[in-house]
């Protein structure tokens, strides 16, 4: 199947590993991402106060474009996913906002496009059992902690992906790859998000709580879904090492990298070189690289 793809500003720049690994893996599974012919930055935050509709012009345009390019829209960035889904919810339920946006963008868009996440497609279109059968290497013995972050799940009545406090979709996916999934209490805890830029120490402490929590439960790696979480949990381990004595580093993957690994794709496609904490020693040790 072909599906319209919204990359967002980050996927072609700082998160090319997420982009490449996802597209190559999806292609092997029969899903081809076709980048939207026209799109611009989603805005990176959904405005929730004071009728700030201007910032939704770009997401509305992307969604309207997608309605003409297949009717479905996939995105890999959790922020884009959140903004697009919430925009859809708004224009489907709030007639006044829908009309204002329609007048401004010249697009009479009212929620026709279906926004999906790759995890949903893997579960529903590919099927986790079929995925298991397609694996070239199983990740048995690799202990991974699933990390959802916040935007993938909340607000739960608008995103409708999974339970916001006890989600399972990422666990089930990792399980189908053969990983030993390690549950830990911080899997839906915020990584600090944009505080990484405005209040670095606070964000580092928030991210540390998550990383440390995973390590304490015996995880050898964390698996995430968002480029900003990746930065806070992976790159900021440099700061964590200086702030916390006895801090133990742990690699952080995008879920699509493990998927690509399991399907036998090459290292260059998986993109191991962009990590701060090099995951290659761990993977070689497990015979996966």
């Amino acid at each position: 199947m072909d599906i319209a793809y919204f990359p967002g500003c980050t996927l072609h720049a700082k998160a090319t590993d997420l982009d490449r690994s996802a597209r190559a893996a999806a292609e092997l599974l029969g899903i081809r991402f076709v980048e939207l012919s026209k799109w611009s930055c989603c805005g990176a935050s959904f405005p929730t106060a004071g009728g700030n509709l201007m910032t939704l012009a770009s997401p509305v345009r992307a969604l309207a474009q997608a309605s003409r390019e297949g009717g479905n829209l996939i995105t890999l960035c959790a922020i884009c996913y959140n903004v697009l889904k919430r925009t859809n919810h708004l224009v489907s339920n709030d007639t006044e906002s829908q009309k204002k946006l329609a007048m401004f963008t010249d697009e009479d868009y009212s929620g026709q496009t279906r926004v999906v996440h790759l995890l949903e497609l893997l579960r529903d279109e590919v099927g986790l059992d079929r995925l298991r059968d397609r694996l070239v290497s199983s990740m048995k013995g690799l202990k991974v902690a699933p990390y959802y972050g916040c935007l993938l799940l909340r607000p739960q009545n608008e995103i409708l992906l999974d339970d916001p406090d006890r989600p399972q979709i990422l666990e089930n996916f990792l399980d189908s790859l053969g990983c030993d999934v390690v549950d830990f209490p911080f899997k839906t805890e915020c990584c600090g998000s944009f505080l990484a830029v405005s209040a670095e120490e606070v964000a580092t402490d928030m991210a540390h709580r998550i990383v440390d929590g995973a390590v304490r439960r015996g995880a050898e790696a964390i698996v995430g879904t968002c480029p900003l979480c990746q930065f806070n949990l992976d790159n900021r381990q440099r700061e964590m090492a200086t702030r916390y004595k006895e801090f133990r580093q742990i690699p952080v993957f995008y879920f699509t990298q493990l998927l690509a690994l399991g399907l036998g794709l090459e290292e260059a496609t998986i993109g191991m070189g962009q990590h701060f904490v090099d995951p290659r020693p761990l993977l070689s040790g497990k015979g996966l690289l």
Partner: protein
Amino acid sequence: MPLPEGAGGRAASISLSRRGLRSDFVAKVGEISGQNLMACNQCGKCSAGCPAAFAMDLLPNQVIRLVQLGLEEVLQSRTIWLCASCLTCASRCPKGVDLSRVMDTLRLIVLRSGKAALSLSDLEKEDLLQAPQLAFISAMRKYMP
């Protein structure tokens, strides 16, 4: 640290009156956020779940309490700038109050008075060269008018 230091609502004295409850400030916050502020009964689940509470001067539940009482000093807290909009509070509130919208509203009120909580020069740090651009976009959305 680029964010405002915050008086934390620690005024020398706090004046409570019925006038405060009916002030324009309370009405404004209620209107812009679209939330029924009086529905909050101070159970504290928001503060218990907030991942940034450890760094805040006022706890999330204290923020909404000050708003309910019409105490505008809440706008001087550091808390409103440390909210990461993670929506944990909103997902747990048993009364259905979306505190993240209230936080956004309080920030908006300060930003619309022309004050920025972050300047571009605060972003000129080497380690941010690796940060994804979405971090800057969302930070600029939240902190600059």
